[in-house]
């Protein structure tokens, strides 16, 4: 993909080294680069970590070093509606939502992209570690970063063909190490911002405190029982636990116990030994296929059920255009409703969706 130089590109800047180097590279390539940061919603009395005053100041300073314009655009209401409310509702419904996915889908590659276009931009660029490839005839493809440790396609599987056609990832072929080196060459600060794949809107606070206010039912103490229905103690709130979790249960037992299920109706946490945990088949909703089309037949693919988990082999069957069933070759213990399942074949990210509650 070679967009015409001199095209106008909006770079989402965080003040961190990745987006700064992304902006520097584009500028070097002759693009008309504008830096932008979104002012996102944050809990009362806190700063959203993605746009805190020090992050803004750093981004402004870097934009100055690069001699590019920089604007902060207000997205607080939009972010609250599209990211925070689904996050609260998700926990209320007993799932473990991933707000970064909604943020990428509805805030960065929608709200920001639209405003980028209003600023006359042809493309939106970010400092993500991922690659976009397209051939003359075929559709745009999303590929893993050259830096396997930093690959962020897990969060980018929500991108459609239309969005990919307007997106540039300047760090596509770089490793984090190379990015740091480039930052030094460009004489840019090399500080990392705290990882943006995190709960930016609860400030420095604990997401559980936030939920206690905004979703009280998800943080209500309740019983812990085992699979035989025997009482095993009390939990501080279902939102504090995910499927497969072993730590923090506060139960002394001869064999290790794990969270097997959450019974939302009775606010009960169900625990059991590891053997009851495995799950070989699960369903995924809100699926986005990068190609724009669901495969007609079952396909073999590796699947990733959390950002930092390893890929496991599976067979994926599209049940309709945005739902799939996934049959794992061997069961996984920590399949968590609300998190994303993302599908890969080698380096190609095929798409992904949200793991369904049973």
């Amino acid at each position: 993909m070679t967009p015409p130089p001199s095209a106008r590109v909006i770079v989402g800047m965080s003040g961190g080294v990745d987006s700064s180097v992304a902006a520097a590279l584009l500028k070097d390539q002759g693009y008309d680069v504008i830096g932008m940061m979104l002012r996102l919603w944050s809990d009362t009395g806190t700063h959203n970590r993605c746009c805190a005053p020090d992050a803004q100041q750093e981004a402004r300073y870097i934009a100055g070093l690069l001699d590019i314009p920089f604007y902060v655009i207000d997205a607080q209401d939009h972010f609250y509606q599209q990211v925070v409310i689904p996050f609260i509702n998700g926990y209320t419904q007993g799932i473990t939502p991933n707000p970064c996915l909604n943020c990428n889908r509805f805030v960065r590659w929608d709200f920001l992209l639209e405003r980028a276009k209003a600023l006359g931009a042809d493309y939106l660029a970010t400092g993500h570690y991922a690659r976009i490839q397209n051939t003359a005839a075929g559709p745009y493809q999303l590929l893993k970063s050259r830096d396997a440790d930093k690959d962020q396609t897990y969060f980018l599987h929500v991108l459609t063909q239309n969005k990919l056609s307007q997106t540039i990832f300047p760090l596509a072929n770089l490793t984090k190490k190379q990015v740091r080196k480039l930052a030094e060459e460009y004489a840019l600060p090399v500080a990392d911002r705290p990882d943006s794949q995190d709960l930016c809107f609860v400030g420095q606070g604990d997401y559980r405190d936030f939920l206690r206010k905004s979703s009280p039912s998800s943080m209500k103490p309740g019983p812990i029982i085992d699979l035989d229905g025997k009482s095993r103690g009390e939990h501080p709130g279902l939102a504090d636990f995910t499927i497969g979790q072993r730590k923090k249960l506060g139960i002394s037992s001869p064999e290790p116990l794990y969270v097997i299920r959450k019974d939302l109706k009775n606010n009960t946490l169900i625990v059991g030994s590891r053997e009851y945990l495995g799950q070989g088949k699960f369903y995924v909703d809100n699926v986005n296929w990068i190609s724009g089309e669901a495969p007609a037949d079952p396909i073999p693919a590796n699947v990733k059920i959390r950002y930092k988990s390893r890929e496991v082999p599976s067979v994926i069957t599209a049940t309709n255009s945005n739902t799939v069933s996934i049959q794992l070759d061997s069961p996984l213990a920590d399949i968590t409703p609300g998190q994303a399942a993302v599908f890969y074949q080698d380096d190609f990210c095929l798409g992904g969706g949200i793991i369904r509650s049973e």
Partner: protein
Amino acid sequence: MNNIYLDYAATTPVDERVTAAMQPYFTQVFGNPSSLHRFGQQAESALEKSRRVLAGFLGAKPSEIIFTSCGSESDNLAIKGAAFAARQQSRANHLLISPIEHPAVLNTANQLADLHGFDLSFLPVDKYGRVSPTEVQKNLREDTFLVSVMDANNEIGTINPIAEIGGICRERGIYLHTDAVQSGAHSPLDVNSLNVDLLSLGAHKFYGPKGVGALYIRSGTDLSPMLTGGSQEFGQRAATENVPLIAGMAAAFELVQVEHDQRTNHILPLRDYLIKQILTKIPSSQLTGHPEERLVNHASFVFEGVDGNLLISILDGTGFACSSGSACKTGDPEPSSVLTHLGYSPSWALGSLRVTLGKDTTAEDIDSFLNVLPGCIHQVRELKS
């Protein structure tokens, strides 16, 4: 960068004749004006010449002009200085200001009320942001020591009837301060016809350098110094005088007076054309501030249902630098408190735009701005929030 600058109320470029006037005082005539030797005397001579330039045009005595670091400092000194002197001497405790003053006045007065127990009250303003002399008359109290009403508002350009307000204050023996930072570039200011006791100026609003301002202090006005130390500036402000910047301020102020008619004749028709075109071309638009009693270079508007911050960003991306009362670099838009005071609802107040012209603004600049503005506003209105 070929962007067109239409934000002269924020600041102005330094006139090249002004930078030339400043040059000798960096390296050649570098002495400390307080020093006894020839180096000091030469610097002092430049300082006193500058003071006489300002005094002359303002109708003041040289000893009534002191130089400060900026308009905000002048406001601080005028208000705090008057407050602390009043407390010490007459026990007067009441301070009366307009609610749409520049933050340099507003927050200074608020601090006096919050931290030092002064009694602060606000004058009503009409829909154009004007203070009525009758209201001043009504709101003065036995223990009022100072009234502060800005000469012209930075955000909406409205000019206040300072001379009449001053007349009322004078009768009651109460000081009147006016923040004339915005009007310094445009109106011939005469402290006697304005009936003011304290008047603040900042050089960078009239093609002078940043970092220098002045305060007119009518003889006999009691002010406690705020910056204590040496006895510079008649004991009203310690610190070695910044001679190059002061010389620059004087040169720039002189040019304002000498070229006043020429500048006004150039800017005023452009501004009137701009206002008329915008109100005609853009649906759901209103002029803010007074239609006639306003700064000659100042045009300010509100557009319903527009994110002013985004509008300014898009205009900048298109090549035009303007500002907005609600726009803020940090992306936290608040409806401007000035517009809220004037009764605009948030859906209007959030969409404010200030276009301020300069002596070098051309008709072509205005035409090209008018070519893009309606489209930009349409675009912002179309974006779903």
